């Protein structure tokens, strides 16, 4: 019997997802610890986003089991998973376009599992402002999302995900298009979140970001895990180099 604090936060067992005859994910097995900084890399079309969809509930796996905080969540809807503590950002930002930035976060706070802690609407607004301040969007709180730049949209998505009060945050290419200093800024933020026991799965193509951030890196290629380990081990792996650079 494993002690509760050593139990993985997220356990993925024998997960397979196919679309018709195409196998997007093939027998994936991985555990993620509480507060772990986990990098997920792989060439385009290797199954990274499909895996994220299976974890967040946007897709049901064809086979396999997803366990979160000790209970089987394979068949739960995304909102139920969100209430249990799984939050995500999207590769292509999906803001609530008819709302302002702070209203986007208020959706998360209005429906969060920890809602009872923020009983009044005023408290929820304060909580939303706190998240926005932390991510550096406080000045844009009352702007309509339509006026935001791509970079701001990505930050807002992270903020909205953080506002749900997650135990696991999946960041799907949140740094695409950011300048080097902005990448560092977002990285510092994500690392500080992990300090608060929030596990983070970071999908990223910016290698120095992955190297700096991750405690462990997993590389997918054609739906299979080809390497998993410390960032240096994975980068040194010939199969990873082959997948990225071709033969």
């Amino acid at each position: 019997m494993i002690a509760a604090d050593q139990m993985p936060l997220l356990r993925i067992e024998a997960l397979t997802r196919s679309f018709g005859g195409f196998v997007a994910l093939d027998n994936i097995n991985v555990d993620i610890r509480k507060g772990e900084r986990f990098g997920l890399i792989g060439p385009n079309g290797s199954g990274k986003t499909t895996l994220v969809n299976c974890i967040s509930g946007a897709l049901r796996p064809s086979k396999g089991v997803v366990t979160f905080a000790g209970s089987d969540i394979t068949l739960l809807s995304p909102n139920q998973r969100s209430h249990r503590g799984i939050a995500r950002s999207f590769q292509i930002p999906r803001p609530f376009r008819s709302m302002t930035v702070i209203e986007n976060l208020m959706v998360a706070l209005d429906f969060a599992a920890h809602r009872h802690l923020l009983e009044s609407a005023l408290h929820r607004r304060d909580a939303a402002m706190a998240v926005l301040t932390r991510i550096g969007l406080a000045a844009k709180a009352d702007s309509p999302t339509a006026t935001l730049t791509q970079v701001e949209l990505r930050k807002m998505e992270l903020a909205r995900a953080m506002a749900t009060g997650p135990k696991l945050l999946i960041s799907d290419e949140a740094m695409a298009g950011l300048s080097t200093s902005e990448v560092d800024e977002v990285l510092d933020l994500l690392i500080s979140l992990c300090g608060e026991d929030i596990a983070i799965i970071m999908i990223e193509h910016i290698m120095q970001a992955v190297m700096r951030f991750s405690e462990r890196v997993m590389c997918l290629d054609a739906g299979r895990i080809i390497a998993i380990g410390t960032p240096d081990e994975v980068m040194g792996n010939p199969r990873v180099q082959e997948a990225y650079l071709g033969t």
Partner: protein
Amino acid sequence: MQKSTIAFWCGAAAFLAFVFVLTRTIGNEYPFFAGYVILQFVVLSVAWSILGGYAGYVNFGTNAFFGVGVYTAVLLLKAFEAPLLVQIAVAAIIGSLLGLGVGLLTLRMRGIFFSIATIALAIIIETSVTNWRFVGGAAGIQLQRPPVTPPFDSYVKMLFFVQALLVVVAVATTRSIQNSRIGRGLQALRDDELAAECTGVPTLRLKLLACVISGALISAGGAPAALYLQYANPESAFNLNYSVSVLAMSLIGGTAHWIGPVLGAILLGTTQQLLAVTISSEVNVLVLGCMLVLFVVAAPKGILGLFALLPLRKGKRT
């Protein structure tokens, strides 16, 4: 209680008092006969906007819900001679069940596909009623009004007052949805259903709720029409015109705030009534179409957008 809530209920009470005084002071029945239709469209438009406006699921089956309301009243009258309030209450229940059915459609269908499915639903129900002898079948059915209940001196005036009550119920319900987290959740799922789900919004539950409430209110608003016309036939009770008018009224008024459909219904409903008297009822449809085109081009957010009432929604909630 919030100040705006107190103001709202004072306004509602004043409205009902005003309507009541009208029924006592004006002798001629015609203004009530015409006004009833306008109030009825206010109820339908406000109710429609819960699903069509906030949640963004465009229901083309308003006529299905309306007709179900009418025929629930017909059935209750014929079988039990049930009083008006019972007809309305039962119509609301049947309407909510039908709403639940429509809500389940949203599981698999969005956008235009959902709208088409609601039209199909209306046709299925209309066909069933057309072949149901007990409620008159295709030929329709004549209905006898029971004696009027005091303090009213005419049945039409009483129906006018009852429809005004339904307006208050519909607006109060919609307003409370708009001001609660349910309203924000519906708005979120209209913008992006997957993102809403992943942000913790139970989208299916909210959609079902919106369908049930919207359906119950539309059917309730349709129930008194049986005794208003003293006649019901499937072709008029399930007329697609209801769907089109209600859609036009909501869009022309603007769906961001409950006042939008109210304004739209009053504007278009009054215009329709005036045209029906002065020119012909057929011109209605033409005017409706022209106004819809005009608004879609010039004011896509409706009257609300024109007056930029939108800031009201964020800060002061009325």
